[in-house]
Each structure stands twice: as C-alpha cells, then as structure tokens.
C-alpha cells in the first residue's frame, strides 16, 4: 500500500487505480499517517514545511463551508510530457489530496472522486512557478556512485567529490 500512496502523491496513478489507495486513506489511520509522513519528508527536503503542519483538518474545515463538487475527475488524460515535468506534481497532488482526505472523511459513502476546491486551485497555480526538487532515492545513490567514476573532476580533486555518494542528505529516510 505504501508504494501506491507514494504513487498517488506523485500523481502517477490512472483514474481506475485511484480507488484502492483512496479507500485506504479514508478508512485506515496508518495509511493517513504514511501519507502525512511522506509529505513531511518531501517538504522538509525541499525546505518548505508549510503544507504538512497538519493542515488537513483546516482544509477539511474550509471545504465543509464550500459546496462539495461531486463529479468526474477534472481530467484523466495526462498532460504532454514536457508540461508535466515542470509542474510540481507532488505539491499539487498534496494539496488536492489533502482536500481529498478531508472530503473522504466527510463523505466516505459517496465513493472516490476529488473535490476540486478553489483553495486547491489557487495553491496549485502559485506553486507552478519553480520546479520542485524531490528527495533523492536510494536508487539514485547507486547512480551517483556509477556516475562519479566518470567525472573528469576526479583528476583535479582526487576522491573528495565521492562524499556526495555517501552524504546523509542523499537518501530520504522512509519509515
């Protein structure tokens, strides 16, 4: 389930794959904790801690004051590759899904489908200015090691640049 939550967070799931992780987030407090932890890691590594300071209840509260939009997903068609890479999808997804967690908690019997609230749209537009930086995965550490051997800078600096390959900052620790 953790990998599905991670994929959901990154906006990588197709419409038909959404139901399972969303149900889990609605019903399972462990899943919600995982969701929050992943976001906390992601935000901390990107230097912004704004969204994960337990904003879900506040978003839910705001949503409760707005008419809930029950309908199909805004779009199940992925945008063209180029556009997609420059959108901080994790950030957008986090806002949309924080809204969603609130919405699922309020009306679990109505099935899965995100409520696109004005706040979420506003935040999404604001976040689109800078490409977001993701945490490096442990697979990326393998790549850093594999790459470093080929850097001509080694000729001038010896192995000092290898410190990147074992740097504590290189790997996001997941619970």
């Amino acid at each position, binding site marked *: 389930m953790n990998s599905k939550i991670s994929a959901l967070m*990154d906006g990588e799931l197709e419409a038909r794959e959404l139901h399972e992780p969303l149900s889990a987030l609605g019903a399972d407090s462990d899943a919600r904790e995982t969701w929050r932890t992943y976001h906390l890691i992601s935000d901390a590594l990107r230097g912004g801690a704004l969204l994960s300071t337990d904003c879900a209840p506040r978003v839910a509260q705001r949503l409760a004051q707005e008419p809930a939009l029950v309908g199909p997903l805004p779009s199940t068609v992925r945008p063209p590759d180029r556009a997609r890479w420059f959108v901080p999808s994790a950030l957008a997804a986090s806002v949309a899904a924080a809204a969603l967690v609130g919405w699922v908690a309020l009306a679990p019997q109505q099935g899965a489908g995100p409520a696109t609230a004005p706040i979420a749209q506003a935040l999404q537009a604001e976040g689109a200015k800078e490409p977001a930086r993701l945490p490096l995965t442990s697979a990326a550490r393998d790549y850093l090691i594999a*790459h470093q051997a080929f850097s001509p800078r080694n000729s001038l600096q010896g192995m000092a640049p*290898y410190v990147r390959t074992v740097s504590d900052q290189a790997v996001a620790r997941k619970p």
Partner: protein
Amino acid sequence: MSRAAGALLLWAAAGMAQAQAAPEALDWLRKIYQATEKLSYTGTFVYQQGERTETSRITRRADASGGIERLEVLDGLPREVVRTRDEIRCYLPDSQTVKVDRRRDQRGFPALLPSQVAGLTENYTITVGETARIAGFDCRAIVLAPKDELRYGYQLWADAQSGMLLKARAFNRAGETVEQFTFTQLEIGNVARERLRPRHAARSWRVEQSAIAPANLAEAGWNVVADLPGFHKVVEIRRLLRDARPVGQVVYSDGLAAVSVFIEPIAGRTEPARIGLATMGAVNVYTREVADHLVTVVGEAPAASVQRIGNRVEFRRPQ
C-alpha cells in the same frame, strides 16, 4: 560588495579574458593534476551544499600501482569510501551495506589529462585569480568561468608550492555557490599504510556489486543524444546494479563536467520511481519515464541542462 556585483565582475572578467589565452592558468591546472596524482596526504575537509555542511577526512597514499584513497565522513554515522585502482567501495553502516563499483579497466575513463587541459578553453574562460591563505597554505585561485549557461563555473584554490587543491567552489550563472569543498587541515607527506584500512570490518554486511560491460543502446532502440554544445559522448556501457538489474549508461563530458544518462527497465524495481528533479550540490538528477523504462540523467550541470538531455531521450522499437 554585493553578491550580484561580484557575479557581474566575474562575468566581466571572463569577457575580457576571452580574447587572450591564459597559459599561466593552464599551467596551474596541470600542476593541480600532478599533485592529485603524486602526493600522499591526509586532511579534513568541509563539504558544503545549500545550507548544509558535512565534515570528512580524506587520506591518500600514492604508490606505483595507482595509490589508495580513503574518505571517512566525520559527522553522523561513519560512512566511508575506499578507492583503489580497480574498485570503489562505499561502506554504509545504516543499511549495513557495501556498494562495490568495479572498474574493469581504465580505458574510456574521462580523466582530465594534462594534455587535454588546453581543450577546456573551448567551454571555459580560464584565468588566474586572487591569492588566499587556506588551512595554513598560501594558495592561488584559478577561475573557470563558463562561456554559456549550460554548465557551472568553478573556482579552484591550489597550494602555491605543491599544487594541492585546498578549496573548490562550483557556482551558477548568478555567481551563487552551489557546492564547495574546503580543507580545514591538511598534512602533505608520507602516510602509513594502516591509515588506509577501512574502519568497518563489514564481514556480515550485504555486498552490492556493480559490474560493467560494453553496450550499444542504439541497437536496443534507444536514441540518446546529448544535444548540449561542448558535451561529447565518452563512453557507453551496461551495468548490473543491485538486484542484478541491467542498466544502460551513456556518459557525456565537456572535459571537466560529466553527465550520465541511465536507462533502466521499470519492471522489477523494488522501490517506487520518483519522476522529476532532485539535487545534490552541483549534481542534478532528473528522472522521467520512457517506454516502460526509467531514464535518469545525473550530471554536474545546471538543472536545465540535465533536463534538456533527459527530455531528448527516445525509444523506437528495433525492426
């Protein structure tokens, strides 16, 4: 002086120097190369990226067989890297893992040889800069200012006597530091063999080997073109990373910076893929999905350059 003004000065200086060759600066680079090859030393350096710093000790013993080097991180868990002519071993105590990168042979390794130093002037304006005292050594700065925004600039401080590199800074177009290595203490001279021994016995640790074999990714249907002026392909190989997953790797270099393109099948991956951009100092890592494969570009270059290479990777099923 403000940072912006400093950057402006640097670029103005770069512009002026463009017209003239700087043979003295190139001699300094050759001197640094010789020192890196020939010297034995032990010292402590600080690695700085963003607002974070990490202190490490580096020890090198030069010998006829290419020397041995050992790097030990002094902050937090004692992570270690030991390099010999044939392999690199990374010791990671938190996961009790040793990652081994074997070097089959030296061919194709894009070392910056003294004879190739002059070639750097194609992409960088190289000048001799200030004198400065670093960790007790009287140093001379050498500035490699990039001729375009596709690469970072570098400022190197070398000991005037031995040529040993005491400090290295990578900077972006705005002149801001993206990464810095600074020795705070250094002793040049004989190093006892015992000091190269890894502190971790690591007998019960998991060993992850990375074997290398030549490859032809174009034959497999991959179209990888650097399309980045000044960067040339230096090597194309296939690796087996942990879990024995086959990964293609193409390396491009402009003589100083290198960019690797990794292509890996998504099937069989044990951890979820992260699509997007990540950064470690002067290294940007950009991942996207192409035809059921993950394409990851890892390079000592600005994010835009790394993304540009990644976005040009195409797959066409071979006929």
